[in-house]
């Protein structure tokens, strides 16, 4: 009975203009962490640019995006912008443009209030489609598709206005290549 009503309630809240009522499965978690595989499908590239690494999110520190392959790269994304860890351990600010960098933070926080602050939200067959509200962001980033399972955020698909697509598979077992292995 409980399993029957949960999706209904979930769907109902998605169609409400005010989404304060619904909760994403990973909301209210103090930490989210795991592995990621990121594929960039860009028109300028002859093949996808694939990176792998670890991520960690907490509301206090923001999103740590630690790429391990093909190069080691440590990014910290928070409300202050995007900064990159240098060889000496210090962080160099790459961009202070919070409009873009802050976009992923509400997704990882799962906070409906924050999500509605940045996106128009609609439902699709696999989860949610997020349309950026800020014109500056929407001129570059068309939509974000979130593939959501009952327990977790499985995949983020970033569709850019120029046709470029970035697929981010979260947790190793969700990546099609790894499934096949």
């Amino acid at each position, binding site marked *: 009975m409980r399993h029957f009503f949960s999706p209904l309630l979930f769907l109902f809240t998605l169609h409400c203009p005010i989404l304060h009522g619904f909760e994403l499965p990973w909301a209210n978690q103090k930490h989210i962490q795991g592995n990621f595989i990121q594929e960039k499908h860009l028109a*300028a590239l002859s093949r996808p640019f694939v*990176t792998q690494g670890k991520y960690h999110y907490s509301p206090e520190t923001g999103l740590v995006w630690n790429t391990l392959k093909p190069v080691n790269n440590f990014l910290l994304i928070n*409300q202050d912008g995007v900064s990159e860890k240098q060889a000496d351990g210090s962080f160099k600010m790459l*961009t202070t443009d919070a409009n873009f960098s802050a976009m992923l933070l509400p997704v990882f926080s799962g906070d409906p209030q924050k999500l509605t602050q940045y996106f128009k939200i609609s439902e699709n067959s696999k989860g949610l489609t997020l349309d950026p509200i800020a014109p500056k962001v929407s001129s570059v980033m068309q939509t974000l598709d979130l593939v959501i399972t009952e327990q977790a955020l499985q995949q983020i698909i970033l569709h850019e206005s120029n046709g470029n697509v970035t697929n981010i598979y979260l947790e190793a077992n969700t990546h099609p290549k790894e499934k096949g292995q």
Partner: protein
Amino acid sequence: MIAFSNNRLIITLWVILTSLMASALVYKSASGGITFDANILNVLDLGDEMNDLTKAAAEPFKTKGLLLIQHQEHQESKTTLTKIAEQLLATGLVQTASSEPSKDFDVNELANIYSSYPLAFLSQAATKAKNNNDYSHIVDNYMGLMSAPSNPLVSLTINKAPLLNVADWFADKSSINRWQQDQGFTYIEHENKRYYPLFLNFNQAAIQLDTVVATIAQLDKLVAHYQTPNMEILSSGLMFHSAAITSQASFETQLFGGISIVGVLLLTLVSFRSIQPLICISLLLGSASLSGMLALTLVFDNIHILSLVFAVSLIGVAVDYGYHTLLTAKYTGFRNKQLRGYIAPAIFVSGGTTIISYLLLLLLPIPLLQQVAVFIVAGLAFTIITALTLIVHWPWQSKPETHPPIHELEFQPQGFKVILAGLILCCLAAAPTWFFQDNINAFNSSPAHLVNNEKRVSQIIGNQQYPRFIYTKGDNQQQILQHFEQIRLAINKINDEGFELLGIDQWVPSINTQQANIKWLQLGLAQGKLTPITDFMTTESVSNLNASSDSFMTIEQLPQAILKLYPAITAKEGNQVGILSYMGPIDPKFLQTLQQQLDFPVHYFDQPTKYSEALAKLREYLLLFLMLAAGALLLLMTLRYGYLQGLKLAVIPIVTALSSLALSHLLLGYVTLFNLLACILIIALAVDYVVFLIEHGKQQHVIKAISLSAATSGIAFGMFVFSSTPAILQFGLTILIGVIIAWSLCFTLPTTILKRNQ
């Protein structure tokens, strides 16, 4: 009956002439042909090159304002900032109100422009790598940028600039060292407090002379609404000072002008105990001002407010002729032709001397003084016309045309020699410490709270609020850009304090630099040093990069939003002059070290010093003019009254002017060009007094006219000593002293000196 018809005809002609002048002035004003300027710095002649540089350097800052908002609760600061920004934008006073310093930039447009030159731009770090021939930086940067889940710079540039060096270049430009980010707001920390900036770009129309006071009043009202004991809001920007000074000047003009007019009218009324002289004096002063103003608008396109302030001197001289004519009519009973014949010589001699003196001002290449001269000469000429037509032919009803005996003074005041000795002593006392104050800061009339605000803002944002300008010359724009790059390198070597050096080269490297960047990256491609990147690129992309490119970005391709941030490169006598804005302190040692590292001359555009030099030059011109005026006075007096008597009479205005300056010096500790300006009027007034005394004798009506004139000038200019504008205070003080001295000397002048040889 014939006399009555003649009077009506003359008065009618006067009315027609005055009406024509009034109509012309109204037409000129209604058609927008009169523009005013209130900036004291604009009256100074810095030389053509400096004037152009000043304008170019000031342009990017003219419309820019800044508010810094601080509250212990950061959210409170952000909410307040948002509300102020929204409300300001709603008023239409500002074009933009943003917490970002570069809100105007269109990233898409910029990315499109820069990506058209895919190999021409290297960030600072990439330039260092180029100097070390280290291609791994380019590869690492590429991998780093591509690793980020979302980066708009990559998305916008990768198609045309696939090495991502252009994305890296933009990252350099958008990283703001001093400002930090907080949920879409920028802020800066100072003394454990967080200040959120609101960058304002005012509409040009909202900060003009006639609108700036209302604009800033509206902004102040808005800010005051949010200002609580825990909320600190600091303002910075030229328009705040401009509004305060204009508002202050307007208040003082109305207050002092009002008191002066009431004083003059009351004096006239009390002296004549009749309304008709009051009407005559009002018409005389009104028509003189009208004539002066019309001449000013016909000759000059742009009128400086300060010219009008100093041109008020006209009232002092004009009223003098009115009193003499009216009192002569009252005491002698002369009317019409007879009155004109009696009064005209004195008016012509004194008026002529004054007009010639003021005409000499036209020889000086200072627009301010030329404007004063045109106003006074035209005003004075029409004063003479009014006195000898309207007032002389005024249809007096109360007095018959009789010839009562002339009233001689009942007593001969003593003390001329004592006063003269006292004045000489004052001059001697002031001489050892004589000092001409030419420092522009001595004339700053900005209110203290605004000056303190500016200092505080400078401390918080860690920069000089207003930049120091360095300029360099070159044959063309490219040479200027090369010079800029070399200066930038040299300054980075001299100090590492990180003060910003703002220049257009930050957005457009010289073609030489662009060529070198392209060559280096193409070499890397050819040598396979960039293979980790090219492995991901399409064959077409790689061949596009390898194709030689002869096109380079130039200043012309930059969007207006960037161009207006920097002083424009100006052309001067076949040379190009470019300005860099340095936000740190500059001293002679710094300049010397900088120059030693460069093989071309670099100049420091020290505005305060340049203005002070211009003030000194102006003061020297005034001194020269005063000497010429004294010479003209001696010449005219000796021509009219003979060598000895002319000399004696000319000495009185000269001594009056000198001792007024000396007393002003003793009181202020220095004298400025505004004290010298006052001397022109003092000489004019003293000449009037002396000429009427010698022409008509030391009679009761002459002394009364002189006393009334002195009292009027004393009231009108004495009020200036309460002014908070230093220039006006200095001007008023010297005139007040001069009027008292001139009156005292004339009042006690022995009749033996006045006896004419003939």
